[in-house]
């Protein structure tokens, strides 16, 4: 490893960082515009053309605002929590491949933070870590509403993480039948979704694993604390939940983490189920540069379709009651995921080894 390798690593990390920050700027604005459209409103219109600079303006405003520290906080944890929220949010995306590797000066640069061979486990670990930020913020604020929000976050995250993990298990099992041996590397999972079935249907995991896909979608909405599962923040009941006592830049970091999480989780859903950056590139007919960029375009397109579903759900559904949230998680999603694992493994076994009695 020499300086060029380190430079490439730095480049990839910075690329991911910039991509996430840029996507957050767009996403916050896009959410406000889309929800406004769904309510016959205009949404932000003043800052820049169609208000596209609104997020930037809000961010600048929050940056210059005073970060009030209430008297009864546990200071260390209170100051640490926003960083605990942001860091895992950015780390999750590090394992997601967002384009075909390209070659610069004889060195291959993968468009991915890093290709971990345990990518999927890393991803689960990071999304679990993100809950600590919410819980610690809620507890250290020394106030009732944040505490309630934090306690809710614990239970919700545990319930839905289980369903999310089980949905991933089905995907990993299916991926193992698609190539040589099983893999947890996201780059490999994407590579195995290349091509089509019968020349028409793309070999996306979403088609054979449709139940796992639906369960995963529900679980990531709950995992990112978005409506209708936003009991952690629940403005109407617990005035913002865990971030009630945060203001200024510290609040902005929670906000940033939430939107980075949405983007990362949507990107993961696109990677695991919708074939990641796979898509027609028309190599040869189009200029080489366009063909090199097209996979990234496909990836972003799939990600934004899922993000749009996030926004659509938010504009449509009222918040679930707490017991409804729990019963949906434990009584519907987890049994459904377990059943699906059994059913799909039987189907895969039959396809691989034939019927046991024949």
């Amino acid at each position, binding site marked *: 490893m020499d300086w060029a390798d380190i430079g490439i690593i730095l480049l990839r990390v910075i690329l991911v960082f910039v991509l996430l920050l840029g996507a957050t700027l767009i996403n916050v604005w896009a959410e406000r515009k*889309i929800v*406004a*459209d*769904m*309510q*016959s*409103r*205009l949404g932000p*219109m003043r800052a820049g053309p169609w208000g596209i600079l609104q997020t930037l303006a809000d961010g600048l405003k929050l940056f210059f605002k005073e970060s009030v520290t209430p008297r009864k906080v546990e200071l260390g944890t209170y100051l640490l929590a926003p960083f605990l929220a942001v860091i895992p949010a950015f780390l999750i995306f590090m394992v997601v491949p967002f384009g075909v590797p390209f070659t610069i000066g004889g060195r291959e640069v993968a468009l991915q933070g890093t290709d971990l061979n345990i990518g999927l486990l890393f991803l689960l670990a990071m999304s679990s870590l993100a809950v600590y930020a919410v819980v610690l913020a809620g507890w250290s604020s020394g106030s009732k509403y944040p505490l309630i929000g934090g306690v809710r976050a614990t239970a919700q995250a545990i319930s839905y993480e289980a369903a999310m993990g089980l949905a991933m298990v089905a995907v990993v099992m299916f991926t193992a039948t698609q190539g040589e041996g099983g893999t947890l590397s996201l780059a490999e999972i994407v590579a195995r979704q290349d091509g089509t079935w019968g020349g028409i249907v793309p070999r996306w995991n979403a088609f054979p694993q449709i139940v796992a896909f639906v369960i995963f979608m529900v679980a990531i909405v709950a995992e990112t604390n978005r409506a209708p599962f936003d009991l952690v923040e629940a403005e109407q009941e617990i005035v913002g939940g865990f971030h009630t006592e945060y203001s200024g830049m510290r609040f902005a970091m929670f906000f940033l983490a939430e939107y980075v999480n949405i983007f990362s989780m949507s990107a993961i859903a696109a990677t695991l189920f919708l074939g990641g950056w796979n898509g027609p590139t028309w190599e040869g007919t189009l200029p080489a540069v366009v063909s090199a960029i097209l996979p990234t375009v496909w990836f972003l397109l799939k990600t934004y379709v899922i993000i749009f579903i996030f926004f*659509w*759900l938010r*504009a*449509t*559904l009222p918040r679930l009651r707490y017991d409804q949230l729990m019963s949906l998680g434990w009584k519907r999603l987890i049994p459904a995921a377990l059943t699906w694992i059994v059913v799909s493994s039987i189907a895969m076994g039959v396809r691989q080894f034939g019927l046991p009695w024949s």
Partner: protein
Amino acid sequence: MGMITELLKGLRVTGGTMLRTITGKEMVTTQYPTEKRQKPQRFHGRHVLNRYPDGMEKCIGCELCAGACPADCIYVRGMDNDPENPTSPGERYGYVYEINLLRCIFCGLCVEACPTEAITMTHLFEISTTNRQDAIYTRNELLMDREGAVPSMFPDDPIADQSELLTADGWVRATAPAGRAVYEGVQMWQATPGPATWEPEPTQDEIDARTEPESG
């Protein structure tokens, strides 16, 4: 399964609204300063003190408006007219006339109380100030000049449409028998401030002379 069909129904509503909004079929927002909605004809904006066509002030300093005001925001002091050079056709005129628009609730009771239609309201509502003193409108700001032009507190306001000062709110007397068929075609309010341009109201005898339709 019931849950999923309900979910799809909800998504259809929001999705449909989004499509209608994007294609411009449905929109509740107007971009206010650049795009203004038509105000109702009887919109209650800031007040104006009117004059007769010959330039005489209509206000006779009777203080009925001050008495009618529920917010107690009008202060009037009358003064005897100079017999040689009268300000108003009556015995007295409004020597001091102040409205505190911070207290005003724009109910229009002063307009209804006025026996001479001296005080009416305009359609201008962009009257915010950066200073409490500026919200107290005196004779200088309220009284129209002899040509019928209404003075503006902020003549160079980029947002306000100054022509709205010339659009009077339509007003109805408290005794207006709204809804009675015999009053059809009888104009009970004036559409412009200043000198009345409308026919005098019919007398009670004339109205009574009209045939009252049989009603229960």
